């Protein structure tokens, strides 16, 4: 379990209002300008009776690296399938690089790393190098072979038969496959699912570098830490809807960042409410919980105020708490899952 809150965890619950969180964050993201790389307008996609995407709106500007964060079944893979034209929307419209998804794909302007379940996603009976060479030749203006190999860091794997790759290595090779055509826009669906911590780190480093060359990247993940650390912007989806949208830091701020808890015999709500950084005060008998935007300042003010208190605890609201608050999903799945 990766600890996202930089402070001491307690068992106390953080549960700010989800409505407020998303409205605060949405206002900020709309400031972003530039040419659109992709656009979802009121997209609905059903599987039988199940509504996978429920009037989803999403816009990504060229050059952005955006994380699509959500629990399993939130609609992340469906979103990516629609962006690639593998699925058609039942309602609403999808636009990619100013054209239809299929058109963008056939022009070779899009690359993708899809989820493959237990399969490698690579052709059997060939070496990594020849599979990559083939993919290059399917594009009109591919990146130089050596450059793709370097970008994906798979130099050591080129001579290896595709069935002799570990899960993590296969994913690295599939990243190379995704970028072999030198695409402007790359979709990655849970790209680090089978990787260990070390390869995950180097994978994101390479992906960031690729993004810094002016590429637009949209990746789906349910690893909160990845979304926070790697993306310029995090779009949280749940049950087929966008529930929050903004930089990871803003998402965290959107849900009262810290909670300061202590026990006090005669808590004075009015006084506590005026302490620096405090946004909300909850008193239950002798138990006091202060929501604060600046826990350090609040504690300093608390000490100066001469309020007697004991059992002081500071609970962090990391992105994980934000995620829980926004999706109402208690089991935020952030285990470094082994394949």
């Amino acid at each position, binding site marked *: 379990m990766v600890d996202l809150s930089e402070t001491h965890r307690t068992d106390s619950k953080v549960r700010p209002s989800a409505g407020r969180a998303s409205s605060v964050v949405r206002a900020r993201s709309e400031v972003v300008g530039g040419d659109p790389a992709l656009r979802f307008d009121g997209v609905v996609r059903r599987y039988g009776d199940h509504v996978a995407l429920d009037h989803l709106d999403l816009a990504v500007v060229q050059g952005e690296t955006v994380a699509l964060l959500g629990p399993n079944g939130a609609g992340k893979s469906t979103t990516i*399938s629609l962006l*690639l034209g*593998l*699925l*058609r929307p039942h309602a609403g419209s999808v636009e990619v690089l100013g054209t239809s998804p299929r058109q963008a*794909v*056939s*022009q*070779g302007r*899009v*690359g*993708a790393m*899809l*989820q*493959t*379940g237990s*399969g*490698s*996603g*690579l*052709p*059997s*009976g*060939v070496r990594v190098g*020849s599979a990559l060479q*083939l*993919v290059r*030749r*399917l*594009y*009109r203006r591919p990146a130089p072979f050596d450059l793709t190999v370097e970008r994906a860091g798979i130099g050591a794997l080129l001579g290896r038969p595709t069935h002799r790759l570990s899960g993590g290595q296969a994913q690295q090779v*599939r990243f190379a*496959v995704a970028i072999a*055509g030198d695409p402007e826009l790359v979709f990655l669906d849970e790209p680090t699912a089978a990787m260990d911590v070390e390869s995950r780190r180097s994978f994101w480093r390479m992906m960031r570098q690729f993004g810094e060359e002016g590429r637009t990247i949209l990746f789906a993940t349910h690893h909160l830490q990845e979304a926070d650390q790697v993306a310029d912007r995090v779009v949280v989806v749940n049950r087929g809807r966008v529930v929050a949208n903004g930089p990871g830091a803003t998402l965290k701020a959107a849900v009262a960042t810290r909670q300061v808890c202590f026990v006090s015999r005669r808590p004075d709500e009015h006084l506590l409410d005026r302490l620096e950084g405090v946004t909300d005060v909850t008193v239950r008998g002798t138990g006091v919980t202060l929501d604060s935007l600046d826990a350090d300042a609040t504690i300093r003010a608390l000490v100066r105020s001469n309020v007697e208190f004991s059992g002081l605890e500071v609970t962090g609201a990391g992105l994980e708490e934000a995620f829980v608050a926004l999706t109402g999903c208690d089991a935020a799945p952030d285990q470094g899952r082994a394949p």
Partner: protein
Amino acid sequence: MSALVAFERFEVARLLRSWKFLAITVGFPVVFYMLFLNDHSPGKVVDGTVTWRVYLMVSMCSFGALVAALNAGGSRLSTERSSGWARQLRVTPIPAWSYVATKVTASMVVILPVLVLVELVGMAFGGVSLGVASWFELTGLLWVSAIPFAILGVFVGFMVTAETAYPVVTALMFVLGYFGGLFNPVGHMSPSLQTAARILPSFHQASLGLAVLDHRGLGIEDALVLVAYAALLGLAVVWKHRVEESRGLA
């Protein structure tokens, strides 16, 4: 266009580099030819003027083509669909139909050397001797008439999963081989089995080749049945491909 050529070359190279594929595709018809050659005396006339050694050679050419097509298409295609490679190709610039087209043509490319190899075995071990023109005519005819097999292989690949591919492919190989009269002269089979044979493409494919050697000319009925099979299976593949596409699977 160069993209499709690259894809085609990749597919053919991948088939020819697979020991498993080659062992099955070449092994079955060649070994069966040697095994069954002395089931009857090789010189015995079994069909019109055609002797057993020639009949079995033509039959094993058909069988080889069938085995090649079912293994190139059926097993591999289903594996690729479940591994995610087929889907990965869908997000590259090549058109959706090219996947199916490349599979069918790759099967056709590998079928040709299989035919030639079985003919060489017939020549070397069965004592088959034909005129140069007859060899070319026979080979060309058997090759073109293997198109329904190639399409069948791809169709099977779309219908089965990676787990069910092996039994289904094996069953089809032997049903089409045995009931199509490839292991025994059709004339020696019971009337009901003879009727069954006439329904199967394998019977008509071999029959097309035998008719030429028997100087019966081009078997129009055989040709029509094979064209019908190719058309029906082709439509079935297109239908299945469309269904998968609409579900985002293909």
